[in-house]
């Protein structure tokens, strides 16, 4: 029977997917001889390794003993946190088995808003099965995402702001922990959502959207505006909930639209709500207005065709040239690339292993020239931050593929040189302090000021993942998010794009996977739309333990469009 080409293609695709799936289930490599050439850190060597000398055996035993002690210490981390004992043990060397966990703990406590997060995590969607258990798995994931994002080595400008927990929780309902982290990063910093400005101190973007919303009211719903003024219902009462949380109390459908079309959905939705309910609202006194706009609206909307309405509103607003507020000022964007360590983090370096060499100052010019000022190839120093258009460091197309941090002794993989050159060429607008030499690829959970490569730790792409530290197999079984055999293998993306290939330094695994990681959120976010829409297949609704997960990559069934590098374009 002749199959039509499309069916064949689909079968082929399914086949490939199945193969990956099988490989995943098969676990670690079957060829045991591989272990003979695998060194302490998991790297394959050219020759078979000699059996360990008595001295090495002794050292390994010592390390194992230390690891046990560390595991005990990690269990009572808060107790040891600032103790002299911790310092002493760190100087002795953190065993690789626990290093990841220790870094994670240290970074998480570096967040300034731990207490606030603790409060909010326990009141975020507590009616959802995933989050109702205090300190349960779901809440832990939420806490990790928020703490990693707000840690002193990640987004130090926004940190944690109330409202972010709801956004992160929604992401976690459909994504594993670390993917949710990257999706959050993407939402905060990409061009279409740029939620950074919503949560930044002073709420610059909220104020801008609020002012715009008032303008729309003035132009299109004058009678309602007058009524609201008379009743002293100011827009400032309801807009924070609407804009910061993206009407989250309402419906995930709107969230999908927001993911897809970005911030203009917020303007359109605000307008749509008031327009649709105008007649009703005009009759309501202040209390009724509040109840309607703050509480009743949180119930699922009775109108079936809200999507149609919102799109109609978007068209109408565009015709009125009111679909978006005036462009954002630079204050709404991160002024420094996320993930760049602070020079002097507030809690102080918990791990003094950097003591032999202070962490290099981030402001230092990357180029070896004599100048002490940053010398960007594009805008002059200082103005890169002030002048519009602002630097959007984390929007994908402009983000340099960050190299692994170089250690103090100048040890670095030879291919990094090629990487650097390529990146500098690729991103001419980046100021010098942000060029790859100056940027150090830091882990969101790593200790501020701790040079990660000061240890024998190999540079791995895991470095950027908040929940999967470097951990050899089967250690620290007390922590379910660690030590899964699956995690020890690096999941290099099976698909890559032209864009990625262009940046890919040949033969440099680290850079490839780091670049791919960067690409991933851009693909994730549209996938969320597919996930949430009823026609997008069975949504992943529950939290799955990390061990069972596919290493942070969406399973193909969930994310059919992963191969497409370009996110869906705004539909209008």
């Amino acid at each position, binding site marked *: 029977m002749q199959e039509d080409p499309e069916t064949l293609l689909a079968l082929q695709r399914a086949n490939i997917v199945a193969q990956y799936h099988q490989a995943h289930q098969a676990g670690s490599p079957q060829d045991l001889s591989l272990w003979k050439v695998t060194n302490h850190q998991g790297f394959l060597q050219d020759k078979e390794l000699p059996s360990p000398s008595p001295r090495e055996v002794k050292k390994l035993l010592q390390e194992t003993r230390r690891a046990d002690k560390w595991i005990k210490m990690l269990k009572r981390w808060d107790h040891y946190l600032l103790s002299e004992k911790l310092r002493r043990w760190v100087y002795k060397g953190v065993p690789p088995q626990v290093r990841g966990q220790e870094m994670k703990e240290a970074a998480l406590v570096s967040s300034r808003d731990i*207490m*606030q997060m603790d*409060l*909010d995590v*326990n*009141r*975020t969607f*507590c*009616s959802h099965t995933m989050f109702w258990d205090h300190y349960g798995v779901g809440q832990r994931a939420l806490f990790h995402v928020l703490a990693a994002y707000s840690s002193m080595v990640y987004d130090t400008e926004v940190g944690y*702001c*109330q*409202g972010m*927990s*709801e956004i992160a929780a929604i992401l976690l309902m459909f994504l594993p922990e670390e993917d949710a982290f990257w999706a959050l990063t993407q939402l905060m910093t990409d061009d279409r959502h740029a939620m950074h400005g919503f949560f930044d*101190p*002073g*709420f610059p973007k909220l104020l801008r959207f609020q002012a715009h919303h008032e303008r729309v009211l003035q132009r299109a719903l004058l009678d309602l505006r007058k009524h609201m003024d*008379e009743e002293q219902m100011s827009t*400032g*009462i309801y*807009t*924070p*909930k609407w804009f*910061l*949380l993206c009407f989250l109390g309402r419906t995930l459908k709107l969230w999908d639209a927001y993911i897809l079309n970005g911030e203009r959905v917020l303007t359109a939705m605000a307008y749509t709500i008031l327009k649709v309910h105008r007649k009703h609202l005009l009759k309501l*006194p*202040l*209390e009724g207005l*509040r109840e309607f706009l*703050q509480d009743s609206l949180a119930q699922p909307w009775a109108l079936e065709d809200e999507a149609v309405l919102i799109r109609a509103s978007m068209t109408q607003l565009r015709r009125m040239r009111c679909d978006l507020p005036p462009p954002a000022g630079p204050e709404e964007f991160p002024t420094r690339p996320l993930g760049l360590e602070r020079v002097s983090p507030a809690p102080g370096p918990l791990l003094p292993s950097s003591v032999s060499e202070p962490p290099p100052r981030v402001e230092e010019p990357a180029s070896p020239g004599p100048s002490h000022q940053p010398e960007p190839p594009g805008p002059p120093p200082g103005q890169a931050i002030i002048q519009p258009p602002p630097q959007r460091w984390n929007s994908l197309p402009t983000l340099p593929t960050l190299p692994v941090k170089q250690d103090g002794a100048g040890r670095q993989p030879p291919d990094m040189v090629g990487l650097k050159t390529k990146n500098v060429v690729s991103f001419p607008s980046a100021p010098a302090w942000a060029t790859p030499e100056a940027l150090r690829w830091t882990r969101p959970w790593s200790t501020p000021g701790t040079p990660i490569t000061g240890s024998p730790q190999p540079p791995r792409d895991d470095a950027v993942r908040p929940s999967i530290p470097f951990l050899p197999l089967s250690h620290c079984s007390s922590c379910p998010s660690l030590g899964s055999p699956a995690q020890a293998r690096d999941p290099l993306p099976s698909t890559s794009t032209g864009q990625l290939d262009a940046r890919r330094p040949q033969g440099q695994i680290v850079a490839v996977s780091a670049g791919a990681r960067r690409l991933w959120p851009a693909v994730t976010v549209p996938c969320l739309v597919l996930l949430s829409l009823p026609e997008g297949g069975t949504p992943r609704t529950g939290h799955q333990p990390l061990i069972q997960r596919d290493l942070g990559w969406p399973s193909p069934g969930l994310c059919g469009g992963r191969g497409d590098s370009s996110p869906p374009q705004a539909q209008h």
Partner: protein
Amino acid sequence: MAKQYDVLFRLLLIGDSGVGKTCLLCRFTDNEFHSSHISTIGVDFKMKTIEVDGIKVRIQIWDTAGQERYQTITKQYYRRAQGIFLVYDISSERSYQHIMKWVSDVDEYAPEGVQKILIGNKADEEQKRQVGREQGQQLAKEYGMDFYETSACTNLNIKEPISFTQPRKVRTCMTEGLKLVGGSSEDSNQEDVTLTVDTGPTQHRLHFAMLLGN
């Protein structure tokens, strides 16, 4: 449309995040308690109308987000408040320590002479108590505030602080002969009137437990 009340009072709840401001509000206006609330984003308010000597008094209570960052939004609402509740959690020493900061904010942004009331909430959690009742009393005395320990959970003392100065103010308004009754559209800013006749509420406080009924 005719007003459903004669006098309006705006009260404001401030204090650290998680001390139970929203719970207090819900307990007072709806007599409900939910152990799980979502965090307040920005501001919110609820209203309740009570009757004092035949005068309908509408109490509008504004709830605010506790995170410091939200002060840029919430401080705009201090100005219009006639009474401010500073809430701390008796099981959190930290929230008690921060009351000083909140007081200085009130001094900066709220109208002068606004009545402040200190509330130690979660009084039902006696086993977790970190702040003694005396400490609360002492602090209240220091800043010239009233002090109550309340529990939104067990409904302890909720009505008392809410009924703090209203009778006095209402009476003052009445004796001043201000047009309060039968509020029509021209009285749209009558609440400002109560501000102008406020002759130092701290000296003439009356506590009417009967005000709201028991």
